């Protein structure tokens, strides 16, 4: 039957209740035989199928995963499959950047009438998984010598320090702001008293995104915040506004320039994508081997504002908290995907990481897809419709069988 001496792949299929599950029922009714390797998990809709489930299936030693639902226009819930399609459009480039073998993930639309298609799809997936051999999650084949050029040094901001300090001092003295969030020589400064204003400078150091302070309870307690915002901070504010986290009128923004219109620099990512998938995986395995799960990336991020992060949710535990390969990959995939269409490219995650992991590259995978496929740049416009949680009938689906 196959040349892979008895290896029988394990295939997990997440299917919607109304089309593909019924398609599988029909295959049964018509006695259409297919390999017994597949295990169906019935969900109401492809809209319900989160990428974490795919990651989890591979952790549970699946050799291939199928996600299948109703054809466009046929969704029992009108649009769940469109939402799913949009998410996979952003998820695939992320996996691609990781060097994940995309031949192990399959998306199809199978209707309740397509018992024959279900049979064929399962047969094909099983055969292809057999050929690919057993999947070993995140196993690196050797070591990658590739290194990104890394974040460019921060641009010098053109603002004038004296007037910045005057502005901040006045805001604090007049009680118009309870805290001025800015940069100082050593790092971020939370100026609370007028005299603190002298520590502020446009070109100070900060490994973190200043807007990350807006989510801190103890900072919120200080009263209306003012923020000394660079272009990336402005973009972050825009996304935070899009996502109802802030109201612009509640924040005093001190800015010397706009949110920036220059296209992001994807050259490192482009270079990474030039590598073979296996080497990409080796690169990330080497990088994540250093991750100690200190969550500096999350804490420094302007857009990781969840009060309870998914990694801290344990019923069920979607992501292992241990800093081993499985837990680290799951964590970084999750974080990057949660930033898909949202990351403003500030680079805080990369700068904050004590292990020197260039996490920005991962976020860029989805950002680049957003830019190329949707002409969407996170934070460019606070009134823009976000990229995830919406869909378009014309979303591309060439990867869906």
């Amino acid at each position, binding site marked *: 039957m196959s040349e892979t001496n008895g290896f029988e792949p394990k295939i997990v299929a997440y299917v919607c209740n109304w089309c593909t599950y019924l398609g599988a029922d029909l295959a049964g009714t018509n006695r259409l035989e297919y390999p017994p390797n597949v295990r169906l998990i019935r969900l109401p809709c492809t809209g319900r199928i989160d990428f974490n489930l795919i990651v989890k299936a591979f952790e549970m030693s699946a050799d291939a995963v199928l996600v299948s639902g109703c054809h466009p226009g046929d969704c029992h819930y009108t649009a769940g499959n469109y939402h799913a399609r949009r998410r996979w459009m952003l998820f695939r480039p992320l996996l691609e950047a990781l060097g994940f073998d995309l031949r192990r993930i399959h998306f199809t639309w199978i209707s309740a009438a397509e018992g024959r298609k279900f049979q064929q799809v399962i047969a094909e997936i099983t055969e292809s998984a057999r050929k690919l051999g057993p999947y070993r999650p995140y196993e690196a084949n050797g070591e990658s010598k590739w290194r990104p050029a890394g974040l460019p040094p921060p641009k010098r901001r053109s603002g004038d320090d004296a007037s910045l300090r005057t502005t901040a001092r006045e805001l604090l003295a007049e009680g118009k702001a309870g805290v001025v969030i800015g940069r100082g020589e050593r790092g971020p400064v939370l100026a609370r008293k007028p005299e603190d204003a002298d520590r502020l400078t446009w070109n100070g150091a900060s490994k973190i995104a200043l807007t990350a302070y807006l989510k801190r309870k103890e900072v919120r307690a200080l009263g209306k915040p003012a923020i000394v915002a660079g272009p990336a901070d402005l973009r972050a504010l825009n996304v935070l506004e899009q996502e109802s986290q802030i109201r612009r009128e509640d924040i005093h923004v001190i800015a010397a320039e706009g949110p920036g219109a220059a296209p992001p620099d994807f050259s490192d990512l482009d270079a990474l994508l030039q590598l073979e998938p296996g080497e990409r995986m080796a690169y990330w395995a080497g990088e994540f081997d250093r991750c100690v799960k200190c969550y500096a990336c999350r804490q420094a991020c302007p857009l990781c504002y969840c009060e309870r992060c998914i990694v801290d949710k344990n019923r069920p535990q979607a992501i292992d*908290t241990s800093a081993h390969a499985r837990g680290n990959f799951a964590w970084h995939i999750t974080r990057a995907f949660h930033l898909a269409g949202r990351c403003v490219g500030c680079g805080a995650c990369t700068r904050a990481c004590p292990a*020197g992991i260039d996490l920005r590259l991962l976020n860029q995978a989805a950002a680049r897809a957003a830019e190329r496929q949707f002409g969407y740049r996170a934070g460019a416009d606070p009134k823009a419709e976000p990229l995830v949680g919406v869909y378009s009938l014309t979303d591309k689906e060439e990867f869906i069988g």
Partner: protein
Amino acid sequence: MSRIITEAGLRELAEAWLRDGQAVAGPSEVKLGLIQYRPITAAARLLFDGFVHPANSIKEFFFPRHEPLYRYRLEGSRVVLEDCEPPAVKQLVFARPCDAAALPVLDHVFNWDCADEFYNRRREATTVVTLACSRYDDECFCTSVGLGPAAEQGADAVLFALGGGAFEVRPTTAKGDAAFADRTEESDRTATPFAGPPRRVALPRVEFDSPVWEDATLECLGCGACAYTCPTCHCFDIVDEGNAAGGMRAKNWDSCQFSLFTLHASGHNPRHAQPRRQRQRIYHKFHIYPEKFGPILCTGCGNCARQCPAGLGVLNVLKAIEASHAEHLPA
């Protein structure tokens, strides 16, 4: 008279250990501008000089970030347990004195109410060779916590750079002596003493109720970078990871800086804001731990400040405490 070894000799020593199937770890350049203590597979990767302090600590070689304690399998409704063992190989670790000095401090906590077998076995199997410092940076404050650039605590041998690729070797234990047996040459060159960083702070009295906590630590964003790169922080969490077939119980690093660290199931959190968590960390290092075990829980390595994304660090907090005392002094 002194015993000296060349850099090539050191690498030969490391190679020899590797050849014997034992483990070697030490500072190595992970990528441009990032030096970390890493297990190495080739001696050429080791760095012996040219840097102040790696971005992490050596505690990982004794107290890994993730360590399975036991595994279990479900056989029907029966649970089958399977113990885990730390690897039996010997380790040779090259370290800065401030990292090595953390080991005798940590020995207390890992052998207090019960002896941590995993930690102890690794300690026994490891030879720690320190590289005495010949430079320091703004974050170094070993001299302020009673240590120095050539502190011997925790080391089995201390190396002093002589220049020209030669090191003076001063073994301090039998393990250290054995490691260098037949590998050194007699010489009359000895290392010139190096004073290390100036005393940057007098260890202040740490007060529990003080506005200084809020004033000095508000910038903290609550990540674990300081704790995870600190040679002495040793909090861990016991977690179960498993599925319907089985799983494991493991010991994972944890940090008092995480808001979840003290979150009760009720939803109440006694350390509800970041300054409280910062206070806990400093208080524990300079008050609770010494009260309980004697030594303070800080070797002045400065990693907390180097790695803090928000530019904080123990030294800065200590200085702020010191300054707040000064403020309260009558003029």
